């Protein structure tokens, strides 16, 4: 597939208030350009899904939203990501501050080898929370729909939980900090269908308070949970581009780009 030209992209501007505005974002790892000129707006307190075949750059994109890609050496970024009139990539912006306000859930649940309580309290401690940590931990576990299952064993090692529980623990850990935006990089791909369903329910609940961006390779999941969907595709140069961005129903029922339609109907990817 050849790389799309600018006039071929169909990007919708959401009517809801803005959470993130991504402008001409490009990411390089060393010599290889992973994504090129991505531009779109993520609405606040909605779930936005990023879909596309593997290698299209969706993970790179979501990690660039909270500057996590910088952990890879030789990562370089051009463009801007605006959050509340702050360019996350301005030279004066501290990435530590960015990540504290934009949380991330990873594909494979990664609780620390500490107790359940300490996992959730971790972010609170390092960011100098002044209130009562125990109360905040309990609130976070409630919001992550995990409290009832762990309330009697808060001191137990987090690794004794099941995969689905661990992922919900990671969500609790992230929302304990009350981030404005929650990024989720394929949060259910390592989980069984029952656990997946619970996380999807949780996501819908959380979307009432937080802005959620989710990367998923599962189209059905995207169509189930998200309000807006972005479709990405990489050309022969293996550089990912944003092909189409629209409200989920429109993207899936009336895709405007030929490639989007091909992907949705399974002809590619």
């Amino acid at each position, binding site marked *: 597939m050849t790389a799309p030209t600018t006039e071929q992209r169909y990007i919708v501007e959401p009517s809801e208030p803005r959470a993130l505005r991504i402008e001409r974002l490009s990411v390089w790892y060393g010599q290889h350009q992973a994504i090129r000129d991505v531009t779109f707006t993520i609405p606040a307190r909605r779930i936005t899904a990023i879909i596309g075949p593997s290698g299209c750059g969706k993970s790179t994109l979501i990690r660039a939203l909270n500057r996590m890609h910088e952990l890879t050496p030789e990562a370089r970024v051009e463009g801007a990501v605006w959050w509340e009139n702050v360019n996350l990539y301005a030279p*004066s*912006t*501290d990435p*530590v*501050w960015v990540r*504290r306000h934009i949380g991330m859930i990873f594909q494979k649940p990664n609780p620390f080898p500490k107790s359940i309580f300490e996992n959730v309290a971790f972010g609170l401690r390092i*960011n*100098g929370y002044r209130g009562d940590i125990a109360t905040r931990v309990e609130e976070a576990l409630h919001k992550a729909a995990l409290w009832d299952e762990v309330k009697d064993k808060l001191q137990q090692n987090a690794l004794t939980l099941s995969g689905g529980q661990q992922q919900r623990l990671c969500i609790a850990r992230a929302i304990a900090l009350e981030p404005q935006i929650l990024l989720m990089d394929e949060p259910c791909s390592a989980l069984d269908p029952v656990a997946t369903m619970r996380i999807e329910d949780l996501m819908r609940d959380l979307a009432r308070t937080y802005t959620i961006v989710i990367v998923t390779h599962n189209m059905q999941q995207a169509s189930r949970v998200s309000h807006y969907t972005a479709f990405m595709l990489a050309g022969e140069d293996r550089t990912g581009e944003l092909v189409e961005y629209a409200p989920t129903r429109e993207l899936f029922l009336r895709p405007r780009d030929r490639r989007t339609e091909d992907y949705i109907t399974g002809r590619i990817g």
Partner: protein
Amino acid sequence: MTSNELYSGDREFRPRLTLRRQLGALFGILSTIAIVVGLTTLAVLITDVVRDGWHVISWDFLTSYPSRRPEQAGILSALVGTTYILVLVAVIAFPLGVAAALYLEEFAPKNRLTALIEINISNLAAVPSIVYGLLGLGVFVRTFMLGRSLIAGALTLSLLVLPIIIVASREALRAIPPSIREAGLALGASPWQTVRHFVLPAAFPGILTGTILALARAIGETAPLITIGALTYVAFLPGSIFDPFTVLPIQIFNWVSRPQPAFHERAAGGIIVLLVVLLCFNAAAIFLRARLQRKIRF
């Protein structure tokens, strides 16, 4: 963005970003200092030794026997002794070590005996070298009645470096992908034939490198040889493997232990020779591995 009180939620936190960043930078500096201190010590050590002993190095130094007079003292007997010991250790320890590694890596069943052998080898790698000397003294010098001879020293050192050769060889064997063994078997070769003709040649560079490094370790060992009775003042060359001997590190030790500064300089000279020999060994190991790995690709 320097202001981090953007939201009401933020007033509940005291992020102290600047302080945390500064602590991180401080720690980075400390780590660097630790590494630099280590490297500096090495540099100072080598410089000091070279400075002390450089003028001592001469053809006479390399070809004279030790003497009561420091100006005439040389390292001939020590060099010769080291060479003999090295050859003997290579002849004894290399086949034993590779054989043991082959057994453990390719043929050993997973039972208690194998586990016991493996635990033993790990333990032996951590036994102080002087204990090996006591072993050599009790078993080789006394029980086998070999006396304080080259062969007793070689056997003792062989036992000392055996775990190194075994571990290095096992690593080399483990690095060979299973597909090579499967290919050999699929072609009808027996397990031994597969190992002998397919696996061993491919693992050979790694095994050789490990052996050379083990021998380099053996060259520098002093304590076990002193314990089995290697002499510190040897003004002759050993005629057979049953003769007494000395080695370079022991000669250095002997000279350092004397009060006269002139002997200390001789010791420094000996150290330079020793370090050069070690450098050659390590260089040979690296060179051989690079060379052989290019020939045998998989």
